[in-house]
């Protein structure tokens, strides 16, 4: 049950305590020191997507200003993940983001059917046997502050896929929570994609769009401007205090 302080012993601010005491009239209050904050941020980045913190750093990202806007991002993995890491490292360590795939959506959607003992005709889901990881679709898509849905992972056909995808988007919109839809230039979300339907396209027409040409490295500036109307995030994370009393 014991865990030692994670502060840096050489830190001039906290001297290894990991926290800076904050003046309080009641019981003690404290704020995380910068030296511990780095570890907290890395831990949070890893919670969102495993090994994301190992992505190479980028100096700036066009995604940073869209944390509270719905986006449709067409970019390669090589470009997107370093930019996502950049964004996640600049949010609170309690910021809850999650990267899921269209295959996860289908698995969650079918899990309740599996529990009822119904036959499932989906090759991807059958390959994983019956999943109890998420009992309902809502369990999967509702909690995060920012949900990133990677489309194009699901390979086996399932006619309900566009509807499940649309349901996920609609649910998030209803809850006033932000979604980023991520497809790749080699497998774009358009007619022929397993997640595509005209209803999905219509729903996504309100989303801000970022299109990164194929072959673009993460450090290269995006020449294609954001288009479409970004939907402002309604609910969500509380704004953080802006002024720090700690000076370098």
């Amino acid at each position, binding site marked *: 049950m014991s865990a030692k302080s994670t502060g840096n012993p050489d830190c001039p601010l906290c001297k290894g305590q990991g926290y800076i005491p904050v003046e309080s009239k009641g*019981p003690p209050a404290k704020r995380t020191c910068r030296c511990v904050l780095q570890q907290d941020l890395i831990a949070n980045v890893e919670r969102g997507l495993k090994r994301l913190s190992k992505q*190479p750093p980028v100096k700036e990202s066009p995604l940073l200003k869209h944390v509270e806007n719905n986006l449709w991002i067409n970019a390669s993995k090589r470009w997107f993940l370093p930019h996502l890491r950049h964004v996640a490292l600049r949010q609170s360590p309690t910021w809850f983001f999650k990267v899921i795939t269209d295959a996860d959506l289908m698995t969650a959607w079918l899990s309740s059917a599996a529990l009822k003992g119904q036959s499932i005709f989906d090759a991807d889901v059958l390959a994983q046997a019956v999943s109890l990881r998420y009992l309902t679709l809502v369990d999967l898509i509702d909690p995060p502050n920012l949900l990133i849905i990677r489309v194009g992972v699901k390979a086996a056909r399932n006619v309900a896929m566009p509807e499940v995808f649309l349901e996920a988007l609609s649910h998030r919109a209803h809850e006033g929570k932000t979604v980023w839809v991520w497809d790749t230039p080699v497998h774009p979300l358009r007619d022929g994609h397993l997640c595509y339907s005209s209803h999905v396209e219509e729903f996504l027409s309100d989303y801000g769009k970022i299109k990164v040409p194929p072959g673009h490295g993460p450090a290269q500036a995006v020449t294609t401007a954001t288009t479409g109307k970004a939907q402002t995030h309604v609910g969500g994370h*509380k704004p953080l205090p802006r002024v720090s009393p700690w000076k370098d």
Partner: protein
Amino acid sequence: MKTILRSVFAATVNDNLMLLQENYGSMDASGLGFDTLEDQAIWRYVKDFVVAHQHVPNLQTLSTHFKRIQEMDVVDRLEHVATLRPKLKGDFISHLENKADDRRRRLATEILKEAGGIITTGVTIKEGKTERILRGPVDAMRYVMDKAHDIVTPTTGARLSGEVTKDGDDFKREYNRVETDPLAGIGQYSGLQQMDEALRGAKRYELWTHAAFTGGLKSTLMLNWAYNQAIWYHHDVLIFSLEMPYTQCRRILYAMHSGHEKFKDIHEAVPYMKIRDGEMTPEEKDFLFKHVVPDLNNHAEYGAIHIEVADPEKTDFTVADLRARAELIYSKHPFSVLFVDHALLMSPRKWVPSTTERLNEVIRDCKKLAMGFNKGLGLAVFLLFQISREGYKAAEKNGGNYNLTHLSYANEAERSSDIVTATWLDDDMRKQGQVMIQCLKSRDQEPFENFRAGISWPTRRLSTLLEPFVEDIQHAGEAVDGDILEMS
């Protein structure tokens, strides 16, 4: 009644204004009056003073006022009353209860006498501007039932019943009392800033259920809350610990107190494990025995932390047993909040076959306890609840977010509780010394957003952990990037 009067104003420098203010609140809520004209004049002035200044007056203020208006009899009475010792906390409440009992006896006798008159000869009573004649046994019993409110109402003024459309005067009195009380609407604070600011503490009549999985810091949160109530807010608390023995709770509380800010220049906190295993260094032992223990035992302002464990002779400890013992303790030490650790270890009043039914019954009884404690006076009840493994696993997949369905194996927890909170921690957070606290239900106010609290593992002390500043996050994020760039 002169002791009561003495206990609502300050006469010496040693008088504790906060406790006198509490006395004033209890006296005002009781609706009791004073017999002599002098006492009535003093009480009237005390009431006006508190309304204007939000604290009780002192002897000099009272004396100056009555001298100025040439009420020398009142000044004499004041000087006599000021020589008495005030009664505080439980002593005052007991004294007030005795006086209220006398009043009830008188009142009950009068009502029954009136009822006798109604049965035999009939009585004319005034109802506003109209007069009505009551006659016969039916009218007599109705009259007794109407008047019974005043008899069965608890001393501190909690209403058990009434007729709302005719109760405007009492409603206005209640509002005026709340308006002048600086602590009105505020319950018993936990000491965790984000939670206290949002929910304003555990309030009378409310059942607060706190849920977590095994090892999820349920008991730790409860002990921290009790410690903060007693040490920082100076209120008495009562803990029914059915999981941990008395000595274990006591050891944790002494370890916590060794980390109090007042000792930071003397010695660092003594870890709980060292106290438990008798492995303190001579310096630590010296510090604990010469500073921590005397301070905790002898500080005049600290509230009391009563810990009760289940009667070892009884195999079934029910909420009724708990209530009987709590009411007995309350008569001597009126505590502000009652903690129960934990629901699953309580027994229902009558045997039921399933765990769900058993838990539901216990939770329902705990809500009734919060509402009806001490003849309707009410109490804040904080009940710990263990989440099932399925609930824990589901939350694990949701980034540690519980929801009310995770309490569904005892659905009464969701229904009867006014507030439901939960704590969550995983291995990373355990290493970081952090715990996430979440609000699953709040009946009377906006729930708070999930927040993290800090925990010092050696002393089990929880503390408020404020959100980092934006520029500190930016700095930390850039530092992480910088470290990687340097390494490559």
